[in-house]
Each structure stands twice: as C-alpha cells, then as structure tokens.
C-alpha cells in the first residue's frame, strides 16, 4: 500500500484544520505593518481539515517503529521502555504552561525540581555539580570541552590543545572536541578491546588537554585499568571526560566520579528512559568535579532561605550554551524515572541490562564472530557470520531482521570491528523476547548458508524496500 501523499499534494484551497482564537479587534493589517515589511507572495502552507491531518499523521505513525512496537536492540542507544507515567508528569499544567522568564516567586516548584535533579544526578555519577542546560549528549560534550578550554585559558595553558580519544569512541567525541577548538589524537584499543596504560603512554605530552572515554566502551567492555588511566592523565595535568552514553551498564555499581573522571555527561534519553522521539529531544546534563564547577553555564539554581533563586554570580562561567535552562520537560521525566526505581531499582536495571547482553552474547557467538570473547557489560559487538560462504554482509542481516518485526542492532560501528553488529538489549526484555531474537538470528545464520540471495535482497515486508541512499546524496531532493 502506498503511503500518504505529501501534505502539499493533499492540500485543497479553502479547507481549514483549526480555527485559532482571534483578536476581537479588527484594525486593518495595513495600518499595523508598513507595506515594505508585508508578505508579498501567498503563504505556501497546506490546507487540510482536522480529519485530513489526523489521518495523515496517523498513517505516518503506522509507518514508523518505536520501542512500544517491538524489540529495539540498537547498540549504544539504550532503547529501553519509556514508562507512560513520565508523559503524564511532564504535561501537568503547572510544568507545561510555565514561561521560562516568570518571576522566581512563581516557579518555586520548577526550580526545586531542577535543584533536586542536579543533586540526584551528582549522586548517581559521583560528581560535585551539574548543569542541566545541554540539549543532548553531544551538546553535553561540547559544554564539557568548552569548560576544559576555559579552565586552560584561566591557567594560561592554551597550548594544551590535544584531546585523546580511543579509536572505539562515539563519533560525537572527536566532533565535539574539534568544535571546541581542540585537536584530536586517536588512541588505539588493545587486542582485549580496552585501553592499556602502556598504549596510552606514548601520547602523553604537555600538549594534552585531556582524554574522553566511554566506560564501558563501545565494545561493551569495562575499561578495567580506568583508575590507572585517569591517574596518568591527571599526572600530566589533563582532565578526563566521561561520555555517559553507556551509563546504563553501571548504575548503582560504579560511578564515573569514583573512577577519576572530572566531567561526565548523561544522556537522559538513554539511561533514564525519556523517549527518543524519533531522534530527539534528548537531554545531556553535564556534571563536573568541584574544581570545574565555577565554569558551569549560568544561571545556576541556588537554595536560599527565601526560596530557590537563579544565580548568575559566576565570574568564570563559560556563559550559556543554550536558551533558557535546558530541556525541562525531559528532566521531569528522567527524575520521575529515577524516583520510581530508587537505588535498588537502578542497580537492578543495570544488572538486568548486563545479564541480557551476556545471555545474547553466549547464544549468538555460536553462529557469529565475537572478536572480544569475554563477559560484556550492557552491549557487545559481533563481527559478521562465522560461516559465510556467500559473503552475506551485516547490512543484509540488519535488513532481514526488519521482516521479523525486529529493529536491527547498530551496524558498522564501532569502526574498529569489521562488519560490526552492536547489540544492546537493555533491561527492557523478557526471556521469551531474547529467545525469539536468538532464534531469528540463528535462522538468519542458517539462511546465509542455504539461501543467501534472499538475505541480500531483504527486506520484503516493509512499506518500502532497500532505498537508494547514494542517489539521494548525489541528487539531493530535500523539499517538495
């Protein structure tokens, strides 16, 4: 069945979808706006009834797939279940209809919530202070790196322009470092998939501003030598940045602050169950140790005897990284999730996520290459099929999964693993679900031997089949 036509093609002149409230004044437009500023061409917006709009977007939704639709083991993205409670709370009128510039006396509950969220994030990560301003993980990284830069400027050490980043790191790490004006030096992972202090040593120099690390890393392996590593960086005067994308592996088990990290960002939309919304909004609060707290963005919420206040009293702040105070509605959701689980629940969530990953790893390594064969944390990376006479590629496996109603794992990442399949089941699984996933993966391994051509043409049952991405990039059509 064809999808809905584009909005502009469905438009019929004169149709209305919503009658907005209108002013009871009738001053002519011409008296209000000089002609030089008035629009000359008609507005090219679709004209649709409420029913048309409802059916259009309902159909679009029916051609989309989220966590509520099925298994989504997308490595590095932590697609856990999003409790519906969180939506209800974020849409309480007392939060939803609050203007960011209302007087502090009007918004004590909102300020309290921010204050409490900062406190609880600090507790979970072992950091001293948090800002909720960053809009997403990458934005948290940028904020952290700008703080590092500002601190270097204060210390007169702007010659420190290198950020060390492992070859297994998320792409945002080097991109953020570059955006903050640093140079990136790639650090090789060892054969065991982690950073060896010995391998790190050659890169240590007075030019090093710091190291960015994900722990567990993108191979799903805990950096066991982390205390040595952070010590080494500190010893040469550098800062260590924790990319929080993988925090779901260790909540309640370990805290970045205790590992020696100086900066940490959280991905609330990964770790704390706020919905991803098809790619956002996320939220990437940044936590720092005390020595970097003066650099955090302003304003900060402070608790005073007269209630909560915004404070701009921070002479060394890097300023603002975003309009207003962060993704408040997302923060509400994350905090509610944390309260719902409590410490024991968070710890159990990590434990379940790790257990589920190991369960899958144990069963899938029979048919798929597992380059780093040891217990993993919350995710693991396979490297294509063990028996693969016809050269079935990871992309073929991914597309084949679609026909089973399963969202494929992350593919071709991390870059250091050939034909990578990065699988993160999260704690939002049942044993049945895991077993059915294993069964499908084994079936695909079998088909790779018997009917590989079938895999290479998958998917078959989706609204469209494999799309020509090269053509899209060569001749970009980006609007109707």
């Amino acid at each position, binding site marked *: 069945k064809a999808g809905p036509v*584009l909005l502009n093609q469905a438009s019929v002149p004169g149709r*209305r*979808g919503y009658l*907005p409230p*209108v*002013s009871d004044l009738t001053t002519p437009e011409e008296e*209000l706006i000089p002609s030089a500023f*008035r629009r000359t061409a008609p507005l090219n*917006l679709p004209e649709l009834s*409420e029913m048309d709009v409802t059916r259009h977007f309902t*159909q*679009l*939704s029916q051609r*989309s*797939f989220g966590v509520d639709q099925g298994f989504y083991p997308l490595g590095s993205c932590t697609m856990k279940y999003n409790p519906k409670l969180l939506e*209800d709370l974020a849409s*309480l*009128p*007392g*939060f*939803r*209809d609050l203007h*960011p510039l209302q007087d502090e006396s*009007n*918004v004590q*509950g*909102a300020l309290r919530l921010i204050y409490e969220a900062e406190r609880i994030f600090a507790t979970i990560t072992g950091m001293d202070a948090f800002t909720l301003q960053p*809009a*997403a*993980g990458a934005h948290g*990284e940028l904020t952290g790196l700008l703080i590092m830069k500002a601190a270097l400027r204060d210390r007169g050490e702007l010659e420190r322009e290198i950020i060390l980043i492992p070859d297994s790191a998320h*792409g*945002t790490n080097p991109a953020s470092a570059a955006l*903050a*004006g640093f140079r990136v030096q790639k650090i090789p992972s060892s054969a065991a998939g982690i950073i060896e202090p010995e391998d790190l040593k050659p890169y240590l120099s007075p030019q090093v501003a710091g190291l960015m690390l994900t722990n567990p890393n993108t191979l799903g392996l805990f950096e*066991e030598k982390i*205390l040595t590593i952070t010590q080494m960086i500190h010893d040469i005067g550098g800062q260590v940045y924790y990319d929080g994308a993988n925090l779901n592996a*260790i909540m309640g088990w370990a805290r970045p602050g*205790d590992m020696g990290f100086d900066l940490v960002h959280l991905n609330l939309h990964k770790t704390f169950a706020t919905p991803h*919304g*098809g*790619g956002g*909004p996320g939220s990437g609060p940044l936590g720092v140790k005390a020595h970097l707290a003066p650099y955090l963005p302003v304003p900060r919420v402070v608790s005073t005897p007269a209630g909560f206040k915004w404070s701009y009293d921070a002479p060394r702040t890097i300023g603002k*990284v975003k*309009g207003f105070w*962060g993704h408040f*509605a997302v923060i509400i959701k994350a905090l509610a999730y944390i*309260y*719902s689980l409590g410490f024991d*629940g968070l710890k*159990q*969530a990590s434990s379940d996520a790790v257990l589920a990953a*190991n369960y899958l790893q*144990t069963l899938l390594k029979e048919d798929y290459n597992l380059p780093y064969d040891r*217990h993993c944390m919350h995710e693991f990376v396979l490297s294509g099929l063990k028996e693969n006479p016809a050269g079935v590629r990871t992309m073929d496996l991914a597309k084949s999964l679609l026909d089973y109603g399963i969202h494929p794992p992350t593919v071709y990442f991390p870059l250091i693993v050939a034909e990578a399949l990065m699988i993160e089941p999260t704690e939002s699984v049942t044993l049945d679900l895991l077993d059915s996933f294993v069964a499908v993966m084994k079936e695909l391994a079998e088909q790779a031997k018997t009917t590989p051509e079938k895999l290479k043409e998958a998917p078959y049952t989706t609204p*469209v089949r494999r*799309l020509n991405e090269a053509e*899209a990039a060569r001749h970009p*059509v*980006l609007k109707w």
Partner: protein
Amino acid sequence: MGHPYLPLTDQERRQMAKVIGIQDESELFATIPVTIRAKAAFDLSARNEWEVKRLFTRWAAENTPVSQLISFLGAGAYEHAIPSALPFLVNRSEFLTAYTPYQPEFSQGLLQAFFEYQSLVADLTGMDVANASMYDGPTALAEAVLLAHNVSNRKEFIVLSGLNPEAQQVLRTYTAHLPVKMHFMAPQEQEPEVKSQLATLLSDQTAAVVLQYPDFFGRLRLTRDLLSLIKESGALSIVYLNDPICLGLLEPPGTMGADLVVGEAQSFGLPLSFGGPYLGFFAAKKDFLRNMPGRLVGKTTDLDGKEGFVLTLQTREQHIRREKATSNICTNQALCAITATIYLSLLGPTGLKEVALSTVRNSHYLYSQLTRIPAVQGLSLEPFFHEFVIGLPTTDESFIPKMKEKGFLPGYRLPSGQPFSTNAYLLYTSELRTKAEMDRFCEEIERCVQ
C-alpha cells in the same frame, strides 16, 4: 524484585545466569575494581507510580502557570493556543518511542514528516533548504555563525543590536575560543538609521552580519536595502527569528535576500515547558547545503522504484566524519519538528495569518492604551510587530509579584541599559488576549503607577 519497569523475573534471571555460566549476576561486574564498587551505593527508595505522581503534582502546584494568569510575557518564548489534535497525534508511540531513523524501511513515517518539516521551513522562510531541526534558536544561530566562519576567509562578525540576549550569550560561548572578532553593536534607545551605522562597520573582513527580525524589542528593521548592503560587502547575512509566526504576515527573509535564516520555532505548537524542549530551525541558500549542521532527509527510490525517504548527505555528520564533521550535533529535536509540522498543517495559511494578525492587532491596541496613561512611557518608536517596550515610573522590585496577585504577568523586565533606562518592560500579546483583558490590565497598571 518485581518492578513494572524491569520485566525480568528472578526465575528468568537464574535461568539466564545458568546459560551464561555464572552463579550470580555480580560476576558480570567483576571487571569493575572493588574499591570503586564500594562507593556506588546511595540512598534512594523506590516510589510507586502514585507516590511519584503525588510528589510531582505537589511541585507543579508550587508554580503558577501562564494558563492561570493573563500573561504579556514573551521575550523569546511565546504562549499560543495549541490545537487538541496536536498532542493526540504527536504522542502516538510510534513517533514518541522511536530512535533516529537509521533504518529507513522501518521509519518512512518519521522520515516523511521530517521531509515535510524541511519543506515547510524552507517555504516559510523563503529559503532553498532547511535541516531537520536544531536544539533551539540560540544554538541554531551559533551554528549559523560557525558555518559562516567555516566557509569564509574572513574573521569579523557584526551582530546588530536587538538580538535576543539568550542568543547573544550562546553566541559568545560558542565563539569564545575561535580566532574571530565578534562585534556586538551597542543597543541604544533611540537608534540612528541602522543602515548607515552598519555601513560604517562593514569591511572586507566582515564574514557575516547577524540581524534579528523582528528584533528582540519587537521592532521591524530588516529591509532589502540592508541585506543588499551586506551582500555588497561580501559578507553573509544571517537572519534570526524569535517567533516565526510573524511569517504569516511578514515578507520572508529569504525573499529579501538573506543567506541563512535561523531561529526558534517554539511558537509552532510547543508548550512553554519552562524553557524546553523547543525547536531550532536552520534554513539556507542551497550554496551552503554541504556545510549545514544537522540531519537532512532526502527523497529517493527503493529497489522496486518506489518513492521513499532517507537520511542523506550524512558525510557531513559526526558519525561518519568524526572530527571533520560540519557540527557535532547528533540527537536533535525530531519530535518537536513533527509537532511544528502538525501545527502548521492544522493552521494552514489562513490560520497562521490569523494568529499573526491577532497578535499584532492586540499589541498595537495595548500599546496605544498603555501609552495613554500619563505615567507610562512608550518606548517603541519604530514599526513593531507583536512585542513592544514601555517605561514605568515604578522602581519597586515587587511590581511583578504584585501584578501576579492581580492575575497578570506584566511582561519581561529589561535589564537596565539594554538599551532602555531602568524599568523598561517588554510586552507580548498573544492571540489569546482579549480586548477586555487588555483593558483590565491597563486599569491595573494605571492604579499601580499612581
């Protein structure tokens, strides 16, 4: 433990551990040094859904939302009527709980919505191309300046007065470490001709000029002349919009010649939510397509020749280009972009124009009524849109709390010297304001300033 968010049962956990070959889950955490593990515990009890609801409802009740007041507060975040159909649709779980559409065959709905969003933004702003969203207006502006910096050999930027202070601050933060000179024009209460002022500042070192339209004080100052002047100097023009609702009435910056048009689209159906999440938009002339930050959705065909949509030009992005990416932006405001798309689909051209016209009618009425009060000073001399500035004789810090007691949010108090003297207030009038409300407000102001 049996918790609604943790589907595994103890029995299942035991079975799984057995398959893995471990006695206990904690073995899986053996790689974490013991000294670290010991410190991870903290004190937080689980709460059931009702308890969490009760707690958050109590916190929510400590706030007074604008929906309970008659608000004239805008200044970068705008109260508007949100159609009931909008949350009903955007909260469908297929949108809400999906990730970035990396698997296009499973995400045609999302991708089509983003494509439609890009088209709407490009059409509205009069530009060739728009991306699939940015975090918010201020960061979109910062990224536009970075783009101009990247494509230009020039090092100087001019920011016209009247730029949203939030955007100014973010711009400063994003560029502090760059080898560029940012010239923020000093705002003045009675500005001389902007054009002549700008002409003296422009040089062959000017990479780009940033102008807000309408500016932070509601003034309409963007003209074709001004943009031509910039163009002649070889600099790029970056136009910033606080509230694209105005495009229901105003000439689009793109039509007037702008190179980059960015801004904040919270007005398109997003609740105020104490400041976020909002929706940054980013539109450009097609020359800058491959330098744009953020995601782009393109149309293509599938194996069978059927039309479909994909994320495209990903070689600009961080997950491919890493440190050479055009930006580090990854997660964006996808659901907010869908929200805006639904909002614009429901409003249509007539609705958008009605909303824009209502705000302008209201603001001009209120300005005229307020400035009839002898003690109130009208400070908006230039043509203005739906925001304006007045001066009040009161220096009383309790003015805003007092007005709140009467049921009003009287606007945004401008920091002194920005550019107005103390006690200047920026007022916004949404389409929700009625003549009766505004008349009552004037009465209250009159009482208050006597």
